[in-house]
């Protein structure tokens, strides 16, 4: 019994089944604690009043949107290098959650931007890169959807994820540069105001909650993918018979 045992879909299916409740309940608990901290404990901001509280959702979502993409690229690279089926399944299971977090980050960013900047949208480097990240997620999901052959879809998606991962830093810096040339420094996101400790803690708790939620959802989804792909095998038939 070593780590490679869990690279087989059969063992991982059962392991994931055991892990899901833990991650789900931790995510729920942390979300409750995090929301309590953000809305009742954290003080009202001196400059931004109550509206700043949206960052407790916005910042974790933005972090997760980028982090999940990197994890997808990691699984894609592992899958391509070692030819492990489970890695590709993990990448597929993560993508929808990543796209949703990207969307949430953009949406809450707009809600925060309206009272703060007086505009729903500005062509700032971070906003624009986040939008392009959403395009990349959509492209990958669309590519998977268009390819019927599982093996080809897995590999094609992994290659696209990788070239996107190489491109994201370049996109970020190009957009940042473009923005400073075009717009002048009317709005600066980078001068981070010194944050009260309790605000930071609330944000971190929410980030860990988002993390656990992602793991739980990805595991549920990967279990579904495993069942779908292994539906011809004996052990899946046994499970299905037991459960119906």
């Amino acid at each position, binding site marked *: 019994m070593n780590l490679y045992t869990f690279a087989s879909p059969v063992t991982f299916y059962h392991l994931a089944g055991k892990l899901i409740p833990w991650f789900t309940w931790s995510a729920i608990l942390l979300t409750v604690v995090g929301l309590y901290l953000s809305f009742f404990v954290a003080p009202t901001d001196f400059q931004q009043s109550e509206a700043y509280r949206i960052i407790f959702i916005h910042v974790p979502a933005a972090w997760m949107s980028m982090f999940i993409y990197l994890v997808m690229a990691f699984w894609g690279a592992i899958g391509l290098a070692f030819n492990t089926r489970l890695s590709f399944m993990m990448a597929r299971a993560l993508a929808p959650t990543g796209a949703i977090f990207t969307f949430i980050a953009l949406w809450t960013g707009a809600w925060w931007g309206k009272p703060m900047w007086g505009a729903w949208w500005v062509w700032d480097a971070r906003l624009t890169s986040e939008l*392009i990240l959403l395009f*990349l997620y959509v492209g990958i999901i669309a*590519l998977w959807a268009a390819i019927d052959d599982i093996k080809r879809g897995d*590999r094609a998606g992994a290659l696209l994820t990788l070239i996107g991962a190489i491109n994201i830093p370049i996109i970020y810096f190009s957009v940042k540069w473009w923005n400073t040339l075009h717009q002048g420094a009317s709005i600066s996101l980078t001068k981070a105001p010194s944050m009260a400790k309790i605000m930071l803690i609330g944000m971190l708790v929410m980030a860990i909650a988002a993390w656990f939620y992602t793991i739980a959802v990805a595991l549920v989804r990967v279990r579904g993918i495993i069942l779908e792909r292994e539906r011809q095998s004996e052990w899946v038939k046994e499970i299905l018979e037991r459960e119906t």
Partner: protein
Amino acid sequence: MHRFILAVLRRDLTLAARRRGDWLIAQFFFVMVASLFPLGVGPEPEMLARIGPGVLWVAATLASLLSLSRLFADDHHDGSLEHMVLSPEPTVLLVLGKSLAHWLIYCIPLLIIAPVLGIQFNLPWDAILVLEISLLLGTPILSLLGGVGAALTLGLRGGGVLLTLLILPLYVPALIFGAGAVDGVMAGTGAQAHLSLLGAFMVLSLMIAPWIAAAALRVSLE
């Protein structure tokens, strides 16, 4: 090694020369997209000069995308692509040769037409010169990254639209540096920084994109 690339190149150029309609369509597309903008936003010369670099770059990007879905598709259709991939020569060189041929057939003519459109958009001569340099440095990126997209979407239903969806986000840096260089000249800040970055991005694409496209091609043909 270079003989294989030359052979691929000669073959694609011969095919293009015998089907002249194909590459002319892309050029007319470029002209038409660029001509639609003055009709849409109004003919004031100052505004046209202001949006000109961006519009011409976007139009050039779209025109090169238009032809990309057929980069491998025709050869895939008649089966010759599989033979070329199965040949002992590395697939990377095949991809490199094909991307180079795409650049020569579809992007070099864009360079020839671009000054005319630049005059239409009321760009000064030094800006047109920089536009040419930026297109010269930037369009290889379009062909190289496009090769990845074409290989990934080979033989899929709705492959053309999907290709656009996959590749356009990756073109963003080329667009920004390319149009930014022309803007820089017109704003008086100089174009050198943008052009250097564009060149760096081109070299990076040249080093990475053919390998990924070759891997994608093998995946698609399995």
